[in-house]
Every structure is written in C-alpha cells, then in structure tokens.
C-alpha cells in the first residue's frame, strides 16, 4: 500500500545533541510537510517542500533544518535540541498541481522525540 513512513517512531536524544528524523513516501507526491505537535494540540507547520522548493514558516526556529534529497525522502534536522523541542513530529505529503487545489494531506505515524 502507498504510504508515508517515519523512522524512528520513538527517538531519545540528549540536550544539545543533534538528531535527524526521517520520512519517506511511496505516494509520489510533490509536496512534503513537517509538523510539530505537542500534547494533543493542533499540529504546527515547521516547513514544507514543493518539489525542491523549500518553504520555511516565519516562526520556525533556526534550530530546525530540513533536507529533501529526492521526491521520496525528507529529513528533519534538529541541530541543538532543547527541552522545549520534545514533541511529536509529523511528516505529511500532498499532491499539488493546477487541477488539484483541494488535495488532502497524508500523514505518517509520527516520531515522538524525547529530550533528556
């Protein structure tokens, strides 16, 4: 089945130790998103890629970076995690073209990040 995969599902890191979360998709969607979600709150968009075009949200801290080496993969790098970065990180994809203005986003299962 076509899907969005996130690895690992659970990640524990130490304060200040860089960590990378990964996302892959078999949907061949051209848009990929990274969200941060804290304790049953609404997901907060960090950035998204439209093909190779990177779009950062204005309030996303510089501590968060992303890479998309190809259509299928996208990475979230947290350069120096703080205690406040402990959260669920959700990857999503969407197909976006002129004919599909209302396409929904498909989410992966998420990676729960713990910062010690």
């Amino acid at each position, binding site marked *: 089945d076509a899907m969005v995969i*996130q690895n690992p599902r659970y990640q524990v890191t130490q304060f200040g130790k860089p960590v990378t979360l990964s996302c892959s998709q078999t949907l061949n969607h051209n848009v990929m998103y990274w969200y941060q979600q804290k304790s049953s709150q609404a997901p907060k*968009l960090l950035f998204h890629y*439209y093909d190779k075009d990177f779009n950062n949200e204005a309030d996303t801290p510089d501590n968060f970076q992303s890479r998309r080496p190809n259509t299928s993969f996208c990475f979230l790098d947290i350069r120096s995690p703080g205690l406040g970065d402990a959260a669920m990180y959700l990857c999503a994809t969407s197909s976006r073209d002129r004919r599909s*203005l209302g396409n*929904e*986003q*498909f*989410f992966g*299962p*998420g990676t729960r990040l713990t910062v010690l």
Partner: protein
Amino acid sequence: AQSVAQPEDQVNVAEGNPLTVKCTYSVSGNPYLFWYVQYPNRGLQFLLKYITGDNLVKGSYGFEAEFNKSQTSFHLKKPSALVSDSALYFCAVRDDNAGNNRKLIWGLGTSLAVNP
C-alpha cells in the same frame, strides 16, 4: 483574518447515539474544508473534505459532514457512535492567502469520548 474554530474542547456521547463535532471557519474566498482524526500516539488520518458540490459530504468510518455557507460551519457527524471513535478530531481549512494554498489552517481539536 482566516481562522478555524472548534468551540468544544471535549465531546462526550454514549455509544449508539448520534455525535456531532462542531467547526466554524472564516476565509476570504471559497472554503476548502477538511476533517482529520488522530488516535493516541498516531498520525492524523484524513476523514473527508468539502471542495464544492453537495453540502453533505460522506467520508471514512461512517462519518459525514455538512457544509453550511450561511453559518460558515462544517460540522462532523455520525449517526451512531462507536467506542472506537474515541479520538482527537481536527477541522482544517486551506489557507487562502496568495502563495499559501498548499498549507492548512488548523482548529485546536476536539477530544471525542464515546462511553459504552
């Protein structure tokens, strides 16, 4: 300003009874509206969307939603609730600002508890 409101933090309903989870929106143009469900420690799952056409939209797991333009509402409904429907529900609308229409504006979520 564009926004989505879910006026109820929590909804409690008895199994077998009809359920309604409320959502109202504010956008400048035609609304593209979505409902997602999130089970504990999982990613978001798409339930249904309204783009255009019939005001009553049917989706996954027996859910439906009614688009009401005059009341700017998009309430989620199900005729007979199941205990397994207990989850967090998010309403979202496509961001209508120029250049932003790959993004969604999210409600704060409503926790649905279905009691046996």
